[in-house]
């Protein structure tokens, strides 16, 4: 199902301009054991509902950003830069925030 995605730099653009670049997951520390790295590389939440994910604006400004999207209808999305994630991810993951 097609939709418009808001690039934090370029504004609303058709989703075909972007590439999906995976679920946003917490990256392990360099010294963490193999198991947590394997988990980070392979395992996914793959939520039916809202989750955070990476996008790349390949046919536009070529920047990477994060989005919160509902995987059932592609709506209710916010998009933001990686640096803004502590503020936004914490706030957005609270129920009904």
């Amino acid at each position, binding site marked *: *199902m*097609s939709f418009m995605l808001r690039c934090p730099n370029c504004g609303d653009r058709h*989703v*075909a301009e972007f*590439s*999906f670049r995976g*679920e946003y997951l917490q990256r392990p520390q360099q010294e963490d054991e*193999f*198991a947590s790295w*394997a*988990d980070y*590389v*392979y*395992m*996914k*939440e*793959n*939520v*039916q509902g809202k989750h955070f*994910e990476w996008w790349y604006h390949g046919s536009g400004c070529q920047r990477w950003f994060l989005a919160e999207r509902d*995987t*059932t*209808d*592609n709506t209710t999305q916010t998009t933001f830069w990686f640096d803004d994630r502590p503020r936004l991810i914490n706030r957005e993951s609270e129920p009904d925030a």
Partner: protein
Amino acid sequence: MAKQMWRTYDLKKTYDIVIIGGGAHGLATAYYLAKMGVKNVAVLEARYPGYGGSGRNTAILRSNYRTEEGIKFYDQSLGLYENLSTELNYNLMFSQQGHFTLGHTESSTSGLVTRAENNKALGVNSFMLTPQEIKKKLPEINISSHARYPILGALYHPPGGIIRHDAVVWAYGRGADKGGVEIHNLTEVQDILVKNGKVEGVKTNRGTIYAKKVISVVAGWSSEVCRLAGVKLPFVTHPLQALVTESYKPWLHHVVVSSTLHIYLSQTDRGELVCGDGIDGYPHYGMRSTLGFMEAFSAHVLELFPILHNVKVQRQWAGLCDMTPDYSPIISPIDEIEGFYVNGGWGTYGFKASPASGFNTAKMLAEGKVPDMIKPFSYNRFGENRLVGEKAAASVSS
């Protein structure tokens, strides 16, 4: 023949085995369990059998994969399919009309050559053809060297073909029912009960039932269902779309696939062309069609078959695919939870696997031991970084 394919029952309090999901894999598992003498089994299906990918696929069957593990497994499946109409006493309309995978670039063509060699070593009938040889079998194809992606060669697989997918689902369901398995429609699993590292049963919209063994066989919904048991999976759910045209007189007598152009097509006995494309590029749980798919498919198919320029599309639809990192499935116990099993990760290519998946899954559940054939498809392979890379052979559906 009975009026109904399978009977309706009240839910019992306990079963030996609960199968979550009434697709081809769940029903095939149930059928082979009954055949092995395990009959106190319930298949719980949230909607109706065949609601998922099993009723939405383009029904292409073949076994010319890339890895030894994959080739052996899919070849067992094709072998079971060859006798399935007789075994289930149901006309599955399996047509082994031959399957082409086209190569348009040097790298994709060398991947096809590797597959041809691996297939030959394992006794699977699959070999390379030149553009002129392709043209003999597919007179309408455009092999001009001036195309955007000229055809350099093809991997041809004579035993590959198409089948009537709904009939496979129904026939396995009917066979399981005859063997004593209960198939429950409109029965959604809402929770999985786990206590002290052991599975106890499931909670459904029709009540709680108990079982020592529970298996999730829900393809695109696997991550959500397994989360109920606290199990994380390496799956990402993407929609895959397909379309069917109006009927035309028979002209296409083989299945044609091109991964560079992201398309595949075949012609049914009714004359319709059944066509598909690659997955939608982002995870999604809805099953809506897009204009983008129709546009991309049309543009690409016209490069191969210019004669299709006036063809009319009749219907478009989508289904969910549980994509894995290595394009191979998981058929496995989950060590952390005694009695809990997963069958999934069938991506865009799992329909062809239904018989071998059902047979080996049933054996695993009945004997409590993982059959050698499916050992490579363990859940633990990801933690051990031992993947079974089938991307080259499975990435454009079919």
